[in-house]
């Protein structure tokens, strides 16, 4: 029978069952009565008497009860009846031992709840599709390239000279990116045979948006003219961006997201036609997207959508910002492209059609042989889930977490199986009795399985409650302070509930099957003869329970090792010598260039603000830099030091006066940048130790000169100080050579500035006053990213902190479950051997010997678990190597701590029953017979 037919049949069975059995029987009855009446009438017509006819018709039906029974059986209702009986019986059994039930339900609930919570994140992050019609026909355009390394003396080794957007390594395929030059977009549009629509997307920088005189910052997206029509979405109000809007010189228009229109205009109806000012450019809102629409990138939810060509006006003021020439540049990669396949065209066909065209085109953009030997090749990827940056980022951590919770669930299952085994032995007499009066073994197994599945479903039900809580908790941990982590809403949808139910069923069968099979194998006669149920020598059940205990110990060790590695990683990160004092430091950012400040005027704007901030009571000193020092971006440049080879691995930071004293970054020689260093005064620079090491062979560099920048915007600077090494940018990287340049003298103008306030007390207490001062300076410039330096650093360790906390919690949980299991098993063994131990004590065995006798067995099990667990831990910890910092995966300390913790806990769990065994009173034990 085919599966669909089986399913349809099941559907008919269930609908009939739910339509009610009484009703069904009633209809059956009526149908047969008609039959009898008609038969009797026909018999009468043939000449029989009325009475004869009636009885004859009746007789032909036979036993109507048996008939009904047969029909019920055909519909499968006797099976349902049996199930209900089994459930009642199981519920009664569980109620009889509330302690066992509570422990089993709780451990299962933790396992199932944690798994479901993590699965709900996987569902939301990795498996969900875009809320647009027919998402399956969407594709994302990407390329692979052998190498994207453009450092070193040769310069560019690929046609990709400039890129804006992320690229990533794929094992065996090389470097991968989803960004293209505008001419390539036009090429695909010209040759769009396999596509219904081809459209492009590009993330904006943070935008300054003025709505009704209120300044805010917002994220936006630039979209090509066919973006909305390609996604086939409809607006909530007004119209969406169309092809005419996306031309050089078109009117400045935007489409607002539903959320933006609600926040600022009270709903879509009032939004259309409004004018807002974006980066000092007036823009008309022509429409609002539907509430569920968030664009094509699940990681970013743009508040505003603009035509791509508007970027020249909105973000063209930076030197590296958008110039119209970039639309013609064939070597500048920046635009993300998606397309909707024509009906009937597969992704493979589309790729086969387009890849040669792209290859041909990209070949014409190469100018050197190295570039020609290393061309990007076009590949198509499924686009139903949109762009995949977020998925790439979270899939590995989620899989690791899923593995960990799977371990917990396995341990919990092993534990319950063990407890059930112990119980099964006490039930031998009952089962033997039932077998002897004719119950079939299959029926018994089914009944015992019903009990364990019921237990599992109870655990699953509580687990769903734990999952609800766990999802919230994980949300906080995964977001780790990122405010833009709002697109994804993991919730308890039916996928997750289905997974929880499937897990319950699976675990129920898993932990129930072995004990059920074993206990139905009871040898009837001896079991019935036993006086006490615990006296039997159930050798096989013991060895199975030993296997379960050993595997629990092994798995717990794996989790302890993982926890140790993650905790040590976090500790290593936290112990990094920053080079500055992170305490009592408040940071916030402002971008005055977005509202029209510029030239030398912006310098005095930032300068004036610094002076006012430094004068605040409670602020010891204040300074600023073009980016946060730690845990923010960083900027590299090329630097020329006479007599040294030019290279571009030096980093620069435009800083304000008193930067070093504010950050408490010690100056080793010379002086720091201060109020003497103005726009017109001699240009100066402070370098760090690493720079001195790289360019001056540790000689005193004071008074020497260097040239900042290689192109037209280069400037000669005199070195006036050497600062102690301080981390700049990525905390995990080595401290690079850094030059610190007064922002007023820097050849690279500063746009956004990050202020740092050294406070006397709690830095956050100063936030309100700092905001007020900034607002007074210019209300159009919003203050953003208000955060303490400590919090900013912690945020970069969010993932490590999450792993450390979660994994420690999981490991403790696993250990706890394993110890409870061990305690239960050993106690049970002791109880079983009461008689034997009583004799030993009566014959003069000392208490210590008895303790050791029991404990020895426990330690043997633990040793076996460790002997299996340690090599496995060593072999598998390599899988998490990329998540570790400052240590190797086979870290000896982490392993030692894990082994010691485990051995200690196991000894403790075993000692209690061992001690109890040594206290057995031989008189009572022997009289117990």
């Amino acid at each position: 029978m085919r599966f669909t037919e089986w399913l349809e049949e099941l559907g008919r069975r269930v609908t009939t069952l739910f339509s009610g059995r009484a009703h069904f029987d009633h209809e059956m009855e009526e149908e047969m009565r008609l039959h009898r009446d008609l038969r009797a009438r026909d018999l009468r017509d043939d000449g029989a008497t009325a009475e004869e006819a009636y009885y004859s018709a009746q007789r032909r039906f036979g036993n109507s009860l048996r008939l009904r029974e047969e029909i019920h059986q055909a519909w499968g209702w006797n099976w349902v009846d049996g199930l209900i009986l089994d459930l009642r019986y199981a519920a009664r059994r569980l109620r009889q031992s509330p302690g066992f039930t509570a422990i089993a339900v709780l451990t299962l609930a933790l396992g199932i709840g944690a798994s479901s919570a993590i699965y709900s994140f996987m569902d939301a992050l990795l498996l969900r599709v875009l809320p647009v019609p027919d998402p399956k026909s969407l594709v994302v355009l990407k390329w692979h390239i052998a190498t994207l390394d453009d450092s070193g003396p040769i310069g560019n080794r690929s046609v990709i000279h400039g890129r804006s957007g992320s690229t990533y390594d794929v094992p065996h395929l090389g470097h991968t990116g989803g960004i293209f030059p505008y001419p390539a977009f036009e090429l695909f549009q010209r040759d769009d045979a396999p596509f219904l629509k081809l459209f492009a997307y590009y993330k904006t920088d943070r935008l300054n948006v003025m709505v009704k005189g209120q300044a805010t910052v917002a994220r936006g997206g630039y979209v090509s003219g066919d973006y909305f029509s390609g996604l086939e979405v409809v607006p909530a109000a007004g119209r969406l961006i169309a092809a005419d809007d996306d031309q050089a010189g078109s009117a400045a228009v935007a489409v607002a997201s539903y959320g933006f229109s609600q926040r600022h205009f009270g709903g879509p109806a009032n939004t259309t036609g409004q004018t807002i000012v974006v980066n000092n450019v007036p823009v008309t809102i022509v429409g609002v997207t539907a509430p569920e629409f968030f664009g094509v990138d699940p990681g970013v939810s743009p508040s505003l959508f603009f035509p791509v060509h508007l970027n020249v006006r909105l973000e063209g003021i930076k030197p590296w910002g958008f110039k119209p020439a970039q639309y013609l540049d064939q070597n500048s990669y920046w635009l993300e492209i998606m397309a909707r396949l024509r009906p009937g065209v597969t992704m493979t066909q589309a790729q086969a059609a387009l890849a040669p065209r792209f290859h041909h085109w990209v070949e014409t953009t190469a100018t050197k042989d190295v570039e020609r030997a290393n061309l990007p090749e076009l590949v198509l990827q499924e686009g139903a889930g949109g762009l995949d940056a977020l998925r790439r980022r979270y899939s590995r951590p989620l899989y690791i977490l899923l593995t960990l919770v799977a371990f917990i669930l396995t341990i919990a299952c092993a534990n319950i199986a063990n407890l059930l085994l112990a119980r099964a032995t006490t039930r031998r007499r009952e089962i033997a009795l039932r077998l002897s009066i004719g119950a079939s073994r299959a029926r018994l197994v089914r009944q015992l399985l019903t009990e364990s599945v019921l237990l599992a479903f109870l655990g699953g039900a509580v687990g769903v409650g734990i999952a609800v809580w766990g999802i919230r908790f994980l949300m906080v941990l995964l977001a780790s302070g990122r405010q833009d982590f709002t697109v994804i809403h993991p919730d308890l949808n039916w996928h997750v509930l289905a997974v929880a139910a499937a897990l319950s069923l699976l675990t129920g069968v898993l932990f129930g099957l072995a004990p059920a099979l074993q206990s139905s194998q009871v040898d009837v006669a001896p079991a019935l003869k036993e006086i006490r149920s615990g006296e039997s020598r159930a050798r096989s059940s013991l060895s199975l329970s030993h296997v379960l205990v050993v595997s629990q110990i092994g798995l717990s060790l794996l989790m302890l090792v993982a926890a140790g590695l993650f905790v040590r990683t976090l500790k290593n990160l936290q112990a990094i010598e920053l080079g500055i004092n992170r305490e009592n430091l408040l940071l916030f950012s402002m971008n005055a260039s977005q509202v029209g400040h510029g030239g030398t005027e912006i310098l005095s704007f930032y300068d004036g603000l610094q002076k006012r901030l430094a004068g605040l009571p409670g602020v010891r000193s204040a300074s600023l830099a073009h980016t946060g020092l730690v845990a923010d971006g960083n900027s590299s440049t090329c630097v020329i030091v006479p007599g040294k080879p030019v290279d571009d691995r030096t980093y620069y930071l435009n800083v304000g006066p008193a930067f070093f004293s504010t950050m408490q970054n010690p100056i080793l020689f010379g002086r720091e940048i201060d109020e003497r260093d103005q726009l017109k005064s001699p240009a100066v620079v402070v370098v760090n130790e690493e720079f001195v090491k790289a360019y001056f062979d540790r000689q005193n560099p004071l008074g020497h000169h260097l040239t900042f920048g290689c192109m037209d915007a280069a400037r000669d600077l005199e070195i006036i100080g050497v600062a102690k090494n301080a981390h700049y940018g990525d905390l995990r990287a080595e401290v690079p050579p850094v030059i610190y340049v007064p922002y007023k003298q820097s050849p690279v103008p500063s746009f956004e500035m990050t202020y740092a306030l050294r406070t006397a007390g709690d830095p956050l207490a100063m936030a309100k006053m700092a905001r007020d001062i900034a607002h007074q300076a210019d209300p159009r410039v919003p203050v953003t990213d208000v955060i303490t330096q400590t919090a900013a650093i912690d945020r970069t360790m969010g993932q490590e902190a999450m792993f450390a906390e979660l994994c420690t919690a999981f490991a403790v949980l696993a250990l706890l479950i394993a110890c409870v299991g061990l305690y239960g098993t050993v106690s049970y063994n002791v109880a079983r051997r009461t008689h034997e131990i009583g004799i030993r004590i009566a014959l003069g065995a000392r208490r210590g010997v008895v303790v050791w006798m029991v404990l020895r067995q426990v330690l043997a099990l633990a040793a076996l678990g460790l002997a299996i667990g340690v090599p496995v831990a060593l072999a598998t910890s390599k899988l998490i190597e990329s998540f570790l910092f400052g240590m190797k995966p086979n870290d000896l300390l982490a392993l030692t701590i894990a082994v010691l913790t485990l051995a200690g806990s196991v000894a403790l769990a075993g000692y209690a029953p061992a001690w109890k065994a040594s206290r057995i009173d031989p008189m009572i034990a022997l009289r117990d017979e």
Partner: protein
Amino acid sequence: MPRDEIPPGTLYMLILRVLARSGEMHGYEIAKSIELLSRDILQVEEGSLYPALQRMLIKGWVKAEWGVTVENRRARYYRLTPAGRKQLEQEILQFERVIGAITRVIQAS
């Protein structure tokens, strides 16, 4: 006149066949029509007819709906589904193959 039990396994085929012939029938009509068409040789046991009809409902070969007879009594009327029609073809093919084989065995000299 001698009456014979319906050979095992052929009841489904007979029910399907008479339903295919006349569209909609209630249980008694089905039994009656099998008896009539077999010239009163085949006799349908009520004790097997109704369980068989229920099994065919489960399999989805027939559909049932309540209606009213000419004498204005409520009756459950059965009708073939496309799946039932296909089943009928298969059952007839199989039956003919078996009967052919049996005949050959009997007539072998």
